[in-house]
């Protein structure tokens, strides 16, 4: 990383806030995996635990933001230090949102465990969640290593998550049309898939923050948007 500050307490402050952000990132990664596993293994206790643990993620966000605000007030950061503090604040916000989506997955899982399972869907969802969790892991690694290329790679991988979502969406639609008794379960599963797709967007935003941190510029080229499947049921105009 960059050279040390003349005032070493400044380095300690910056390290502390980033360490807390990484700890928060670890909790969020675990929440994604646990939520997906609880759905696949129909483990209501695990789902309940994910819901409870979200409080901790929210508290971490508050803490990270307070530390960042303090750093701005006391140290008036500039240049790369300023970008560090700004990205810490944005990433903590993204992580908190991902945590919320995991919590929502867990809530729906608590309902789904009492219904007839829809064949194959839970493992597809787990795979999708695993991809997002890997993206998050790489985005956080890219942050720590200040690795713009890895962040760029994460950004591009979001497209695969979108494709998985589109495939699941079609699959759920087919099930619902085949048998209306599947509608409630499929609606929950669809919202779960949608939540994971949204997580991917937040992780992409984290990757973009890493690029801003490293280069000083936000990546400007819009990510390629492919399939329009999710919009096909929406009214025109």
């Amino acid at each position, binding site marked *: 990383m960059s050279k040390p500050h003349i005032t070493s307490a400044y380095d300690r402050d910056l390290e502390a806030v980033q360490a807390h952000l990484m700890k928060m990132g670890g909790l969020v990664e675990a929440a994604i995996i646990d939520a997906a596993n609880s759905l696949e293994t129909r483990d209501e206790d695990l789902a309940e635990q994910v819901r409870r643990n979200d409080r901790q993620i929210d508290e971490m966000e508050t803490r990270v933001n307070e530390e960042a605000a303090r750093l701005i007030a006391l140290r008036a950061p*500039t240049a790369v230090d300023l970008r560090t503090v700004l990205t810490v604040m944005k990433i903590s916000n993204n992580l908190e949102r991902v945590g919320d989506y995991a919590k929502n997955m867990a809530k729906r899982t608590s309902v789904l465990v009492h219904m007839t399972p829809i064949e194959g869907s839970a493992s597809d969802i787990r795979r999708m969640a695993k991809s997002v969790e890997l993206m998050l892991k790489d985005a956080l690694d890219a942050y720590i290593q200040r690795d713009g290329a890895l962040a760029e790679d994460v950004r591009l991988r979001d497209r695969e998550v979108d494709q998985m979502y589109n495939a699941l969406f079609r699959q759920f639609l087919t099930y619902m049309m085949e048998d209306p008794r599947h509608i409630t379960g499929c609606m929950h599963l669809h919202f779960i898939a949608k939540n994971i797709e949204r997580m991917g967007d937040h992780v992409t935003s984290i990757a973009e923050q890493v690029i801003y941190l490293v280069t000083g510029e936000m990546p400007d080229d819009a990510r390629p948007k492919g399939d329009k499947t999710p919009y096909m049921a929406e009214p025109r105009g």
Partner: protein
Amino acid sequence: MNDMRIVERDVETREIKIRGDKVQVFYGDNHAIKDVDIEIQDKTVTAFIGPSGCGKSTFLRCLNRMNDTIEGCRVEGEITLDEEDIYNKQVDPVQLRAKVGMVFQKPNPFPKSIYDNVAYGPRIHGLASNKADLDVIVEKSLRRGAIWDEVKDRLDAPGTGLSGGQQQRLCIARAVATEPEVLLMDEPCSALDPIATAQVEELIDELRTNYSVVIVTHSMQQAARVSQKTAFFHLGNLVEYNETGEIFTNPKDPRTESYITGRIG
């Protein structure tokens, strides 16, 4: 990145006020300024920053030929004010310094009354036709120097009897009294408390609507607050010169970054 503060005060397009071309300064064998090219805009506050001894004051003094008065100092290259070479033989340095005013690092009031310190410039340049006019100029200048309230009841007292911070504000009042086109300020706030500093910064921002202001400062926060352009000097070189917002968020040169972020460079 555009400096968004420019929209705050309505300022028309900025022309180049001062242009330096391959400027070199030597003190005997000491090569203090090396090949500096710079364009300083009108109606803009330009901050010079850099570590102690990098040549900020030296370069600032070139802009109104203050270096002429220093024994053994030699200036090479070209410096123009409104496209006119200020080192041309025809240029009268005294006239030049009325146009390009200066506030020094150390306050240097004349050993005269507060009133006369400010009235001196306007008198010799014939800016007032009678005492009443001069009174108006003196009051206005002292107000702009953010010191009027403290001295209005003792204008006849000697300027040297004021506190250090008050003396500095008196010198600022004296510098603006002749309505210069360019104001050079060498660490004008180093002896001022935060309130007087804020008042001087407000004055600088106000002056910018009509003048070009160049300020040397060791306070990164001050440079960031008052200037639209920032020049970073290092070992006599002009390393980086850009919009202030850009310098403080995304400097291009690692030496600039180390300096402004307070790193061991």
